[in-house]
């Protein structure tokens, strides 16, 4: 699918994107939805171009796979916002924009012309979204956060890892993913309001708070039972109750099983028949065991103690005998929602995604590169991944010339002055 087909739902709109790694996915999602997203970089290139990994491990601002991943569908202009000329030009860019996304620290925003009040006064129709670690105001507003600090302060890390060992985080930054994706939702809610009133507004998005709602059921569990769900290791805690193990080793990798009491909570009888079919049910077919397991089905509280250990040992032994594909296919036949623990290679070779034509080839100057494809299929206004991430200032002529109507001479002057 390419840009020559039907336009995305946000095709009529333009976005100025001044985000760092905290918010880059947000601009990209709006671009995926069809908006024209202009990434504004300082002359010399955005700092996120220096985040690895790099193609062939060559550290170069045009070779960052981080940049490539989060800037497809965007255009790039260079602009020095620390100069008066740069800020004046930025104001003219804002005149043409429907959305502004930025990740400027709250105490630095006004100095570079990104004060919320002044922008709202000069551009009342704009939806202006600020993405910051903790929010625009409040006691922690001036604090800094990386992804790990975000996952820690938002509560996700306290639920990741094993008891008695250190808390961990998903290595692919989830604080950044969460805050970006949730910022898009807030931005589009403000946009919907604008379609009714013509007025824009400010959206104040916090990474810490975005992570907070990944707690699953931990917040009501504290509220209602006064118990902290903790680090469950290989499993979950639901309502303060520890589930069974949920990742099992198969003959060729790992599978993920249902966590309510391991395999057994939801469909115990079918599951035992399944094990029995392979001669590996041990004594779980006994009336005593079936009665115990039936008792767990009405409410989703997993069994605990020696029973749980026994069930788990049974499953550990069972899973090792079969491949991942066989285990999951058979589990799904009895309506047990197991899945495969995919590695990157598995995903790229996955038949289901291939059949859905998920992967997207994009042209780079020296060949094609495979990217993840649209994250939803809209029947009338498709999401599309249209083109590779831009080079530094690749679209200066289009943006400053065509959009703002500057002459070639004027653009050259701005370049020579270091403004763009």
């Amino acid at each position, binding site marked *: 699918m390419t840009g020559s087909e039907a336009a995305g*739902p946000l095709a009529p709109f333009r976005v100025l994107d001044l985000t760092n790694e905290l918010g880059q996915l947000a601009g990209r999602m709006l671009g995926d*939805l*069809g908006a024209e997203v202009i990434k504004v970089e300082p002359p010399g290139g955005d700092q996120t171009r220096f985040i690895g990994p790099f193609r062939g491990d060559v550290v170069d601002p045009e070779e960052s796979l981080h940049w490539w991943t989060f800037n497809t569908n965007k255009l790039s202009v260079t602009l020095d916002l620390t100069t008066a000329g740069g800020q004046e030009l930025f104001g003219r860019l804002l005149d043409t924009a429907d959305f502004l996304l930025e990740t400027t620290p709250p105490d630095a925003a006004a100095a570079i012309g990104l004060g919320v009040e002044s922008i709202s006064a000069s551009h009342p129709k704009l939806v202006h979204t600020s993405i910051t670690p903790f*929010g625009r105001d*409040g006691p922690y507003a001036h604090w800094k956060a*990386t992804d*790990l600090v*975000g*996952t820690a*302060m938002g*509560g*996700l*890390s*306290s639920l*990741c890892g094993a008891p008695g*060992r250190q*808390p*961990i985080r*998903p*290595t692919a930054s*989830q604080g950044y993913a969460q*805050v970006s994706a*949730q910022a*898009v939702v*807030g931005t589009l*809610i403000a946009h919907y309001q604008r*379609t009714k009133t013509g007025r824009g507004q400010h*959206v*104040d998005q*916090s990474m810490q*708070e975005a992570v*907070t709602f990944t*707690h699953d*059921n*931990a*917040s*009501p569990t504290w*509220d*209602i*039972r006064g*118990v902290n769900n903790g*680090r469950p*290791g290989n499993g979950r805690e*639901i*309502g303060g109750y520890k589930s069974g193990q949920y*990742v099992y080793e198969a003959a060729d990798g*790992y*599978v*993920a099983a249902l966590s309510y009491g391991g395999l057994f909570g939801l469909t115990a009888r079918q599951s035992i028949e399944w094990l029995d079919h392979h001669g590996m049910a041990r004594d779980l077919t006994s009336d005593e065991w079936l009665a115990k397991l039936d008792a767990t089905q009405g*409410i989703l509280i997993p069994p605990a103690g020696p029973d749980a250990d026994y069930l788990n040992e049974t499953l550990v032994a069972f899973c090792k005998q079969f491949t991942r594909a066989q285990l999951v296919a058979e589990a799904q036949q009895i309506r047990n*929602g197991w*899945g495969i*623990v*995919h*590695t*990157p290679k598995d995903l*790229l070779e996955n038949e289901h*995604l291939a059949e859905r034509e998920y992967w997207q080839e994009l042209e780079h100057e020296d060949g094609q590169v495979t*990217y993840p494809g649209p994250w939803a299929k*809209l029947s009338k206004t498709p999401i599309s991944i249209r083109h590779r991430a831009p080079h530094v200032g690749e679209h200066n002529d289009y943006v400053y010339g065509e959009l703002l109507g500057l002459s070639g001479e004027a653009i050259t002057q701005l370049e020579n002055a270091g403004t763009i």
Partner: protein
Amino acid sequence: MTTELPDRVFEGLRVADFAWVGVGPLVSKYLADHGAEVIRIESSVRPEPLRRAPPFVDDEPGLDNSGYYADFNSSKHCASLNLQHPDGVALAKRIVEHCDIVTESFTPKAMRGWGMTYEDLCEVRPDLIMISMPMYGLTGPWSMWQGYGHVLQAAAGISHLTAYPGEEPIGTGVAYTDFLVPHFAAAALLAALDHRQRTGEGQNIDFGQMEAAIHATETMVLDYTVNGREQIARGAGHEAYHPYNTYQCAPRSGEVGGDDDDRWIAITVTNDAELTALLQVAGHPRWRSLSEDALDAKIAEWTRTQQAEALMQQLQEAGVPAGVVQTPEDLRNDPQLAHRGHFWFLDHPTMGRRAYDGPSFRLSDTPAALTKAAPLLGADNEYVYKDIVGMSEAEYIEHLVSGAFE
């Protein structure tokens, strides 16, 4: 008792929410908390699984007593309807006729079996926007597969990247993608809504949860497709930055090894200035010459004598990105979240006054407002079937007696 609400963004928009568990209800929660009239359509014959999941108030299992369900369903209505009943599907369509949006998250065979696909429902509501959110999408060889968020995080590659280095891929301790993909689904839905606002045209959205979740794996895909490298899990750590880790602090109270000895802090350094600041706070500028492992060990030794909250304050004031590994209890006491009003406290008829999560963003003019606690199963039957659908009292009683509302 109701105070004046700010202008509600989705005032006048009505949603028939057939979805269940995490993903669908969290999408419609965004709409409900910003003023849409969201009608959850549920049955006591095959209850929404979260109504059966703990935590329960007083540890009493009951369909109207689950905090897990409640948190995801603020500001919504609920009509009960048994879609297996002979009149069930016809009644569902009569509700849909009055709705702008339909959300659902079953495996595709459910809506097909009931004759309630997008095409079917367009016959009663031509400008409908419908979003289907099965694990693996509406088509393809795995489309009929079931799953839950803790399985999907594995299928999407996130669990592969969530582990202690070199150990089994345990993933997060939560049904992670249930709290990730709803934002993508809501973004697609809101964009479709904008399109309808401008053109009058509805559409169908095939939202495969795995396909959205893969977009939250940072550079995992390109590192493989470009460099042929399978990225690996690094515990709390980071490929490029060091120190970047979680470190144990002193127990908040009591002794080392006691019940309260599980306080941790995240300390991260992304440039030389932050390293200088960190070592200054630690009082050991010379640690700079240590190897990464030796430095990590020294920091861990030092933090073990420090209170986590005080150390966080000190490090942040010195310009070091650091933060306590906050527990659910800590979040409830967090001054920043309190400042932003993250938690809402709402009165529920059987569960009492409980905390609910609000959205993580603040809109300056039209902020969210959680207008009521989660609905009891079937709480709004009379409103939905009489006031919206337009049933007479006699017809309502007839369906009630026949069991259609079970």
